[in-house]
């Protein structure tokens, strides 16, 4: 029977939306070229990009905590002298 209906229209719009989105993504700013003689593999770069925030945060927390401990240690030693 005649198969056009909300289902069909919805699917067409979904395709159009996806294509538009993809086009927008493709034209968005990409990082500086990642090249080298070994295959960089996008998955690796994307994971790093996604995790960078968390890893940077953890790193800064650890450095901050290390500094706090150092100050405390110096303070403690000065007290003990």
């Amino acid at each position: 029977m005649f198969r056009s209906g909300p289902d069909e229209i919805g699917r067409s719009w979904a395709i159009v939306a996806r294509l538009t989105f993809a086009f927008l993504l493709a034209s968005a700013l990409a990082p500086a070229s990642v090249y080298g003689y070994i295959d960089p593999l996008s998955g690796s770069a994307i994971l790093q990009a996604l995790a960078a925030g968390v890893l940077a945060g953890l790193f800064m927390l650890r450095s901050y905590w290390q500094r706090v401990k150092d100050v405390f240690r110096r303070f403690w030693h000065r007290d003990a002298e």
Partner: protein
Amino acid sequence: MTDGRLGGSFRDPSGYLYRSGGTLYRQVDESYRENYDALFATGLYDELTAAGLLVPHAEKPLDRAHSAGAYRILEPRPIDFVSYPYEWCFGQLRDAALVTIEIQRRALARGMSLKDASAFNIQFHEGRPVLIDTLSFECYREGEPWIAYRQFCQHFLAPLLLASRVDVRLIRLFERYLDGIPLDLASRLLPRRTWCRFGPLLHVHLHARSLARFAQTPIRQSRLARPVSRTGHRGLIASLDGAIRRLSVSLGTTEWGDYERTHGYAEPDRAAKRALVAEYLEQVRPETVWDLGANTGEYSRLAAERGARVLAIDGDPAAVERSYQHVRSAGERGILPLWIDLTNPSPALGWGHDERRSLADRGPADLVLALALLHHLAIGNNVPLDAVAHYLSTLGRDLIVEFAPKADPQVQRLLASRADIFASYTPEGFERAFGERYEIRASVDVGSSGRRLFLMSRR
């Protein structure tokens, strides 16, 4: 070794290794000029060589170039013996990983970065791991992800995790996977509880899935590939470092773990054996020694103390691990413990069977030590005595070998659970088999069970 380009040196357009007049050189290609100069300008070369993390080199005149397009010719300080990650114990791979991390950390601090993190770029020199690929560095560009991240995870983190959480013998997978353990394979093999730890979860499990998911996606087309800040980079290194430091193996009680207690030597007999081996060593004065079935390296040490460079080879990973821990803690420089099964030693591997050399191809040694080994090969593994003699003669010029007759308790243990089909395993059979390949220079009885220690030279 023949002159010419090295079999395994072809993947990196920055340069390659070649041999000329018996000396090893590294040709630096014009395309690598900027990075090579930066290595010195940033002070990174000096820092790494001073810290013993990078192998130093001397620059040679360009007339020694192997082909056109050379920017520099380097003569690196030679490595005594080239070994491969599939021959390393857990501790060796772990230390190689930590050295790589340390190098990347220092490089970042000076505005450079490793463009590859292969375990094959690390060699052991005087007991410690060192980077041998001077052309591994590139200028760091802020925002770019670490290009060597995947390689680091496959070459170091994945095998170390598998060794620690599943079985130490999985390091052998390196023999099959020369670019490290594929992350999807590692992810599948690791126990489910590794999903609960941040390091393994991110760097192996999620990494594997991300690689699979974006395998067909060119990097430029994904907005997800946002810039990675320098702090993010440092955080990544710190995370990998922590994940590795948390790993360990339990040595357990493998067959040879209790060897020292049960090997059937009473104290005075052992002292006599040591003295005799020492005497033989002094007669031969070898520069290089391969101690086969070295166990924890007791006799390797005797040779190293006399100035030899020793390979302490054993088929039991726990023994090699103990041997290596001793080398590290005592700062020994003359011994390299390696995990090799003599009945199935490292073969020639890689493209054209020419990228990684077989064990025999990396010899021969001046002297081979085969103490308390023969009965394991001849009786434990059914290798005929003349076949053993033949193989040993390809590995070294001189030989110190111990023959234990069937009456010996160790041999009795091997015969206990099998039929005695070894008619020619007798003192006469031994001397006949070995006499074909070797000239017997000395032989002395040791111990009370009829063991005899021989000094031989290849004919």
